[in-house]
């Protein structure tokens, strides 16, 4: 059985920072990732608010962090964690890819989030074709076409700004106002091909003969004033749900499935810490994820030191 001081689950900015702080605290660290190093940063064309990096492409920042972690000696493996167990002072990690059981003294869960869906008629039928959650991946096919973005937060405004450079028209439908930072919202509103419908609720993805044709929405408050906008594609940005399904049988999840941690990133299971977007928190950004990762790794190191003192 492979044994580590610290296993980090997820190689987004939180996980990579935790791994870097872990090896620098002399821990034997393994980082597990189900897709590729970088997490949500990979889906971000331009990060403009990570101090010192200026305007940087998400994958480039991800690769810099990954290479930094590897240079310091972090072990890395492509694995999807399906279960963790805490048996006395030891933790066990199970993965989807094979039967190997990995043992660790501490675990940092840094699994981030995935996009929330609307669960309304037509969504199942058109997801992956006309409905997408990644403008950077699927935006290209809408050159000179009509596109709708659902949502008004940071992701909707960032991705909308990108889509507006490609599409003929961009309509934003949101149940509040645009709530991202005011500078970005004003810029998006100022673009000639952008139209915003605030305080609306999308009720259906409409199609004809299996072909997607548009979306139906109503006034959020009254449920009245039904309108249909014809469009070629839709991007949904209505929030996120944490990748914590594999922890459902533990006691460390709070509302919405997010990890409940204290200011030391400790969960209620000794030796298991949470970091980044999968934690219950207010601001989900690269800089807050890296900060969580650093704190979690320091605390993991302190926990191991205390364990070793107990042993002598």
């Amino acid at each position, binding site marked *: 059985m492979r044994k580590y001081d610290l296993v980090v689950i997820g190689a987004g900015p939180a996980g990579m920072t935790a791994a870097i702080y872990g090896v620098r605290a002399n821990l034997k660290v393994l980082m597990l990732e*189900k*897709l*590729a*190093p*970088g997490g949500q*940063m*990979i*889906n*971000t*064309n331009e990060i403009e608010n990570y101090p010192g990096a200026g305007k940087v*492409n*998400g*994958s*480039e920042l*991800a*690769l810099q962090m990954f290479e930094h972690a590897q240079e310091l000696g972090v072990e890395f493996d*492509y694995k999807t964690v399906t279960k963790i167990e805490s048996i006395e002072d030891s933790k066990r990690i199970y993965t989807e*890819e094979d039967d190997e059981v990995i043992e660790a003294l501490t675990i940092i869960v840094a699994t981030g989030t995935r996009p929330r869906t609307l669960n309304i008629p037509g969504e199942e039928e058109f997801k992956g074709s006309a409905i997408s959650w*990644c403008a*950077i*991946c*699927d935006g*290209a*096919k809408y050159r000179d076409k009509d596109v709708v973005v659902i949502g008004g937060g940071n992701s909707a405004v960032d991705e909308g700004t990108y889509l507006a450079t490609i599409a003929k028209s961009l309509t934003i439908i949101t149940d509040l106002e645009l709530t991202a930072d005011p500078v970005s919202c004003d810029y998006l509103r100022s673009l000639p091909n952008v139209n915003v419908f605030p305080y609306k609720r999308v009720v259906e993805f409409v199609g004809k003969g299996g072909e997607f044709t548009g979306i139906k929405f109503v006034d959020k408050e009254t449920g009245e004033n039904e309108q249909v906008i014809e469009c070629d594609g839709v991007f949904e940005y209505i929030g996120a749900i944490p990748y914590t399904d594999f922890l459902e049988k533990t006691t460390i999840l709070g509302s919405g499935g997010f990890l409940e941690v204290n200011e030391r990133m400790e969960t209620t299971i000794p030796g298991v810490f949470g970091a980044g977007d999968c934690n219950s928190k207010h601001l989900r950004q690269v800089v807050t994820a890296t900060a969580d990762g650093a704190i979690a790794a320091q605390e993991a190191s302190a926990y191991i030191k205390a364990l070793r003192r107990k042993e002598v």
Partner: protein
Amino acid sequence: MLKELVKEEFTQDIAKGAVLVDFYSSTCSPCKMLAFILKDIEKTLGDQVTIIKVNFEENPDLIEEHKVEGYPTLVMFKDGEELSRKSGLQQKPVIIKMIEEAL
């Protein structure tokens, strides 16, 4: 071997052996991560598979011919026949499996 598309050679290139084609865009962030993973794969499997990178914007004819809808898209050819295809960024072991199935 990993190489950028040379248009005149494409049909001939995919006609023989295992060839993985990466349809990418230079402005797409997941494509950049995939490029890194493909370089890594080339280190171990480069003598058994040819990886050809095709720029989405510069090759609309190939995009249409191979019905590529978004990027990144990976298409695995064996002796000119399409064996499998995956759209979006993929886990490294998944790409290795795609290649191994064509060997």
